[in-house]
């Protein structure tokens, strides 16, 4: 029975959803469609786009295999490293820290976010550069070490820059973990390590998966960190895109790479969520 109230209710829902839908349409769907169209087109001689339908650009992808390789290796690796550092921090904040200290400690993690990542990553350039840590190490007699412009440097930058983004969702899921479950586990004879592995970890998996997915996705499009700390030697897809769109003005090829990147993200995300569901044992994975 389609009542008047029902109709009005649907109208209100539609009205509330409209701004978000419009936003998505203008800034997400339309650009993506444009990119798809470009990706199957040809490059104009002076740069830009000529209409057409060809798979030429996609067949060209192996030319940028290094960028794909770096991104697909270093983004998940960076996210996992981030996780290894973030989990103990989040655990300490949510479980061990006294509640009255929590707010202060959490803000200490968030505050660095208020300064530009550019500036903070620049600082790492000096720390890892030849006058930074390597210099310090050589004064205590260690062999000369190149740190900057290595995958390691990029990973350091990633962990540093994305840590808060990883800590927060894990912190939230640990924070709402029912402490009585930990008591119950201990009551049933579980040592602290077993309680952690059997209860705490699985119940915080939604937060872990959210953090890993969030950081991985952002890293797949990362540009700044490889630019500064990889110095043209370790570059990501993001760097390739900047190069293609702004320098060589090869829009169709850039679009093909971008479309492929989006597909990779979708696949990675779907697989990750499947795994998260399997582990967390619920049909619902909270995005924060």
């Amino acid at each position, binding site marked *: 029975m389609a009542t008047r109230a029902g109709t009005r209710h649907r109208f209100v829902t539609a009205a509330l959803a409209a701004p978000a839908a419009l936003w998505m349409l203008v800034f997400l769907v339309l650009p993506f469609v444009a990119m798809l169209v470009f990706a199957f087109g040809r490059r104009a001689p002076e740069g830009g786009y000529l209409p057409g339908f060809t798979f030429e650009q996609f067949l060209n992808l192996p030319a940028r295999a290094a960028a794909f390789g770096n991104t697909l290796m270093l983004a998940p690796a960076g996210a996992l490293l981030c996780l290894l550092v973030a989990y103990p921090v989040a655990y300490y904040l949510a479980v061990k820290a006294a509640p009255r200290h929590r707010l202060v400690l959490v803000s200490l993690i968030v505050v660095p976010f208020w300064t530009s990542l550019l500036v903070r990553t620049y600082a790492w350039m000096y720390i890892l550069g030849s006058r930074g840590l390597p210099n310090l190490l050589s004064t205590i007699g260690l062999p000369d070490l190149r740190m900057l412009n290595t995958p390691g440097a990029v990973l350091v930058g990633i962990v540093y820059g994305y840590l808060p983004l990883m800590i927060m969702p894990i912190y939230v899921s640990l924070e709402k973990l029912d402490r009585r*479950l930990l*008591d*119950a*586990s201990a009551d*049933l004879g579980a*040592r602290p390590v*077993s309680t952690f592995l059997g209860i705490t970890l699985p119940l915080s998996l939604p937060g872990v998966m959210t953090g890993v997915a969030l950081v991985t996705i952002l890293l797949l499009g990362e540009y700044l960190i490889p630019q500064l700390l990889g110095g043209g030697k370790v570059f990501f897809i993001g760097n390739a895109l900047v190069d293609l769109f702004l320098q060589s003005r090869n829009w169709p090829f850039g679009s093909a790479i971008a479309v492929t990147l989006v597909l990779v993200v979708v696949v990675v995300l779907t697989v990750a969520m499947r795994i998260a569901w399997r582990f967390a*044992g619920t049909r619902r994975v909270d995005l924060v």
Partner: protein
Amino acid sequence: MTAAAVNDIEFRSVSKRYGEVLAVSGIDVAVPKGAFVALLGPSGCGKTTCLRMIGGFEQPSEGTVLIDGQPMNGVPPYRRPVNMVFQHYALFPHLDVEANVSYGLRQRRPRIERREVAKRTAQALELVRLGGFAKRRVHEMSGGQQQRVALARAIVNRPAVLLLDEPLAALDRKLRTAMQIELQSLQRELGITFLLVTHDQEEALSMSDYVCVMNAGQIVQMAPPQEVYDRPRTLFVADFVGKTNRLSGTVEAGGTTLRLGDGRALPVVAQTPGAVTAVLRPEAIRLDRGECSERMDALGGTVTHRIFLGNAVEYAVAIDGLGEMLVTADRSAARDPAEPGERVNLSFKPESLLVFPA
């Protein structure tokens, strides 16, 4: 220790302080082996704190908790031979019923063989009549079923003592009554000590071998249910374990007369003279229809309300010059019940009057 301890649990001058709050103050108590003990008291009196000190989740600020004769100071929860059914069950939401129940067995070192774990888990589920529910997720179970999962999860470990923190509080009345009977027969069957926390006096009286009444962090009385009800040690116990009518007055020299404020004299069983509060249970009063006699110990009054309780009838009677009293008459006695507005006469045996120094 050579001889086996007679008490499964013993508190020796145990106190627990949370900052300024004294949650438990100097408790001495012993729970005999194999008994069903109810820890009864109003909300906030320290019942949960006592259980948590036995479970090992809290350490006493002073004193010692002994389990099976062994002092438990500094022994972590996972090394204590007790299991707890938590107040809101605390079932593991990410595990199915079977995995919840087998959790304790799977923690044992040396490991218990898989088949054995499965067997004992199935037995425990059978015992709480959840045989077909092994693969269910806990949030797909009703409150009563979750309650039984929690029970199975604890008893599968065969603890020396089972601690139950208000296990039935969240269930509706009918289910609660059924579970009370089930818990009782389960305890008989297993022969392990049950220590059950509740704020429901009916539950405490009906299920347990001993009722341990707590108030404000202290144990006021520990005795069999009948005794707690019939011979409460304090006014608090009398009030808490049943309905009461209160009368203030003075026991006169000689100790056999209670003089009420309005000059009325009631006979009492020998008491120390002095100011007292006397308590009379509604069912200890006999109600006769008709005008009251002129005797000094008679309580004449007018029925103001009549409440039908199913198996009994409860009257509120305004006693001339004294105030309202509750009277419960069972139905056989009330085949021909008094009507509101009717004059009635109340009487009782002197030994039904419970007298406490004011």
